[in-house]
């Protein structure tokens, strides 16, 4: 059975029709055309699909669409402003963290939620957050450095 729900995506209220067991990733990618959110695995283990829901980093591949009503969702498309990148994005690029880029939207969103909650998050908190994301290209070194750099940038803001 389909139902209509309204939630906010990147600051704009959207109403979509959803069916049974649909997940948020499907709504974003197939119904709203927000393809920046990526699917990498089928067992909620890679983190490529992470978006921010009400301030919390959340795997959109397991989040039921029917629980979306009234929520505020931020996706990778809502992080930069026009051609101005978010400091997290700038820091990751400068550290050389972008190789194939497929895991990047999820990692940006993870750090976005973390630093919005606590711009001075500890090294350990950053490492715990990044542990939820798989990257096959970088060996994590540049991602780690990018995350630390992002924290510096946000502190200087």
């Amino acid at each position, binding site marked *: 059975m389909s139902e209509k729900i309204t939630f906010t995506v990147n600051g704009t209220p959207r109403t979509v029709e959803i069916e049974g067991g649909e997940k948020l990733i499907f709504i974003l990618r197939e119904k709203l055309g927000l393809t920046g959110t990526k699917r*990498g695995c089928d067992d909620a283990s890679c983190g490529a699909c992470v978006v921010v829901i009400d301030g919390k980093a959340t795997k959109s591949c397991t989040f039921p669409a029917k629980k979306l009503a009234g929520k505020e969702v931020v996706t990778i498309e809502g992080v930069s402003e026009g051609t101005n990148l978010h400091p997290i994005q700038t820091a990751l*690029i400068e550290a050389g963290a972008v190789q194939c880029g497929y895991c990047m939207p999820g990692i940006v969103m993870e750090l976005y939620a973390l630093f919005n909650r606590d711009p001075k998050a500890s090294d350990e908190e950053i490492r715990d957050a990044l542990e939820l994301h798989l990257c*096959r290209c*970088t*060996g994590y070194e540049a991602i780690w450095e990018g995350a630390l750099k992002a924290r510096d940038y946000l502190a200087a803001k």
Partner: protein
Amino acid sequence: MTLKYIGKDITRPDATGKITGRVQFLDDIKLPGLLHAAILRPDCAHGRILSIDTAEAEKLPGVVKVVTGKGCEMVYGDNIRDLTPIAVDKVNFIGQPVVGVIAETLAEAKAAVKKIKVEYEPLPVYTDARDALKKDAVLIHENSGEFWHLPGIEPIGGTNIANRYTVKKGDVEKGFAEADEILEGEFNYPFGSCSAIEPHGSIAWFHEDKTIEVWSSSICPFIIREEVARVYGLPICDVRVHIPELGGCFGYKSDITVEQTIAYLASQVPGRPVKWVATRKEDFLSTLIGHGIRTRIKIGAKKDGTLTALKTEILHSTGASADTGVHVLIASTHNSTGTYEFPNCFLDGYSVYTNTPPVGAFRGYGHQESHLAMERMIDILARKLKLDPFDLREKNYLGPGKVTALGETLHTTNGNVRKCVEIVRRAVFSAPKAKAEDENYYYGRGFAALMKSPKGAPFSSKSCYLKFNRDGSVCINMGGAEVGQGLRNVVRMVAAEALKIAPERIRVYTEIDTQFSPWEWQTIGSMFTTQGGRAVVRAAEKAIAELKKTAGIVLRTEVDRLDYDGDYVFVKSDPTIRVPVPELGRGYTFDDGVTVGDVVHTTADARLPIQSNPDENGQGRMGITYTFGAQACEVRIEKKTGKVIIDHFASSFDVGRVINPVQIRGQVAGGVMMGVGAALHEELKFDAEGKALNPMFRRYRFPTIKDAPGRQTIEFVETPGEIGPFGARGIGEHPVVGVAPAVLNAVYDAIGIDFYEIPLSPEKILEALEKK
């Protein structure tokens, strides 16, 4: 040579598009009338198909077509044509396509797949080459030995041997007779998965005008184009292949695999595009897997450490088809000497059909498997001979004037292994080990030297199209697949240097489209920087010559009196007599409108320097550009758990020339992590029935940030090569090659136990410690 751009940390051109999620990967593509496919895979890894019942599936809403392999006579393959797009009357591995459902939505296609019933008559299952080679083993391909194949491939009909490749150098028995010590060992590098985070996928569209259009997350658009055209009887020009952004590759998106399956499905619904993207399980089992190589090794040496003879037997569980794995075996076999000169070799490799997913390219391409054997054996040999392992190696390194197993003489331009060794030795072994153990840990240090030679093909080439715009900026188009390794930036930086133009004024291609992109064989073997960069330099030189030709007309002088600095073409003896480059790009127009000269756009290609098929001894020019390196590590083994923790990993490679320091460090850091994954965590496991036990990330044990080495030392030697741009050699695969032996050598140093196979799980270490 003073270089202006090469060697600088210039940000890659694709970073912004990727970090904003704006670039388009295969699954992001929407097309008008797009249909979706889901595929039924067997629940039996080897069996005859007795019946397929699709009646219920066909009745479901949204289902457009249900496709089986009945009557399909198509065979394909680039090296050995032993692949079919869909199972015909028999299944040979657990990930094989049996029935495809095409529907209006993916959910509808998946729902219909669940309603299909297939009956099989099970056949004996072999998941290991050793079993498939037994005398009474049934043939996985009943017509084995009869498939079309490239020259140089030697199937043995009536057996499960898809190819035997043997290298003979000198007289191996004489070599062993001269030896004072002979050592034997057997090593195993089990199946693994490249596991890019982007799953493989493809879209195929059979158009009404009889042309075919394909999109794929592949690194081989031109091979797909040629093979699809061949099987559908079309001229190659009537097949168009697009490659969107790629979310990692590491090998398994090479060759032609799933594309033929999706094309076969799409051929049944002409006029509408059909999309399929692998589930993670399908990505593990229905594309290509890696490794599956057992190496039996016998080494002879004199008391002083001089190596006299090497015999290796390499058994490759190549999987249900050998097309994609046959060259992995060949590379593993002729590189099983590692970095050492053996005067006498007998290297014997077997590609064996097994009931497992086909093995294909995996970053390292056969090298890490045989290096695990050789670099462990050298350490064990040094112990036997009571020699320092560095001294033993030093005595036998390949280098200028030395001859490889293939009979190729090496030159200074192939790089210097000793310099790499010194770097990692200094980083890891400069001081005596601080302690052997404490309350919680054992401590160890290990080393491995390495050599990598890409496996090419005689006809391999990369091409470049370069055009000057009317403002003097430049566009470059090539067929090299950007998988994340950063080749677009390499192209841009090499072009900037060659054209003396700032990189910001050079725009490099994004997607590949065979309709517009210049031809390239495939982007494999760590060859793009070398070969693609060479093509860029050649195209740039042609463009400069073109600019000078037009300027010569304008300035009414001979071309050889002119020089070029990126901004102007000018007279060497009087640089004030000059023409700005932007005025020459479309030919030069005089004040009266008369225009002279041609549009400045050039093409160039770069073949491999010389390559040949193997001769009767398995030798030939097959090594192309040898690259040397060394790796070492410091580990800690937790006494309570058996867990190996890598505190420090050091790597050094003689890359000829560092193009971009940030990017090359990223390549090495990522490659080392991949090697660590293989050494300590990753194994794709199959049970006796050929069913996969862990085709998902949670159970495959993909390394996370918490598995990363505590720190990495990464340094380069720059002995210029003779082929690549500004002396550069490739680096993509090399960082994985020495990791497993370095880690296992360190584990021996820590606990005095020799391990011969990976992954080295904590359980295995605890068990071995208990037995000790």
